[in-house]
């Protein structure tokens, strides 16, 4: 099985990596690049714990091959804060109490952040739709949804 040399920008930094054909973006992030904020919950594109931004759009990184990311821009939870300043969704989710075990949180933050980028004043229905692919077992989602509303208010 061949190795592919790819280049990508990860959280603003240029990386060059050799990856096997069959590795997912998630495996490359967690193993090769040792960026472990993004989590593996199911390897099937169902739970959303692996959500990252790929060229600005949220994807399940377990459903993208590493080799497909040649030339791409990837943003993970580690890249949301700006020089130590938390993004509005990060601040808001802490304040709203929307974090318990925290395992779904990185994926939730990416999905929520991307939502507010494309839709700065989402309705509650739009928030729920945007997060339907991020499973959480701890919170019951109420405070996550409140957090996104609060973050939207901060941004506006």
């Amino acid at each position, binding site marked *: 099985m061949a190795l592919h040399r790819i280049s990508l920008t990860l959280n603003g930094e240029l990386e060059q990596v050799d990856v096997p*054909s069959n590795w997912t973006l998630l495996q490359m992030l967690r193993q090769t690049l040792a960026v472990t904020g993004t989590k593996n919950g199911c390897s099937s594109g169902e739970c*959303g714990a692996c959500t990252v931004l790929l060229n600005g759009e*949220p994807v399940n990184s377990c*459903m993208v091959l590493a080799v497909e990311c040649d030339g791409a821009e990837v943003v993970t939870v580690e890249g949301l804060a700006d020089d130590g300043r938390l993004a509005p969704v990060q601040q808001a989710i802490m304040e709203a109490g929307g974090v318990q075990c925290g395992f779904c949180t990185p994926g939730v933050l990416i999905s929520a952040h991307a939502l507010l980028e494309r839709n700065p004043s989402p309705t509650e229905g739009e928030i729920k739709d945007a997060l*339907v692919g991020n499973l959480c077992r701890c919170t019951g989602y109420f405070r996550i949804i409140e957090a996104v509303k609060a973050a939207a208010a901060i941004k506006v």
Partner: protein
Amino acid sequence: MSIDAHPALPEFDYLKPKTLEEASQFLAEHPGEARPLLGGTDTFVRMRDGLWKDKYLVDVKGLEGMSAISFKLKEGLTIGAAVSMNRVAADANVRKHYPLLVEAIETVASYQLRTRATIVGNICNASPAGDTIGACLLYDGVLNVHGMDGLRREPLASFFQGPGATVLNPGDIVTSIEFPIPPKGTVGKYIKFGRNNRGDLAIVGVTVAGHPDKDKASGYRIRLALASVAPTPLVVDEVENTLSQESITDERLTQAAQAAMEAAKPIDDTRGSARYRKMMARNLSQRALQAVWEQLGK
């Protein structure tokens, strides 16, 4: 997905040919062990389960014509095979002229999956549960296919042969799907029944499209397609017949819904029983037909 699932993808080689010719050639030379790769959302799941054992994944996303959406007012819409569902749903022309397609897309899985999933990929996998296939059928979609004999067109209406089976041969790559301009006054409705309120597979899906048609005795042409109740996506001709011959009344709509139920041949599986699916085929067809009828201004 199954108890035999492996932790990671099996070994395979990833290829990214530069031209359609190169891609078709390779696929034709490796039948049964090479597969075109679009969004991957079905492919990777089945490979991890050990169901698909391809040695080569041929990434066709970057090839000519695959990534474009183009619309011409007199001719219609062409969606490149590699265009993601999200991109399709966000396109202004699609939203204006093919809203039923947008409605169907927005019920699929999750936003993250729709960043990768493609309409054409769904069609090529020929899953009877595909949410967007009904809209594609009722909008009279035609696939542009590049194969070893060059380019050809395959109407969607005759494309599906069985679960997972289509008219495609090794070497064939669908490059785009085309839709003619819908007849004036076309309205539609997609109702999906899933276990969750959003995001699930379609346990039963009903797509209805209708438009005023003075060539029909009823004055309207209304068509209906069902998902997840037959080996292939199912356009129920009897519904069209029922609603074209005489004036449309509530009784006629109910008759049509009944016809939909009778055409449905669902199976029992862990997602739903055949009995329930038949009832939902009827009830949701009733709702969708009613909704379209109301939109038609009646």
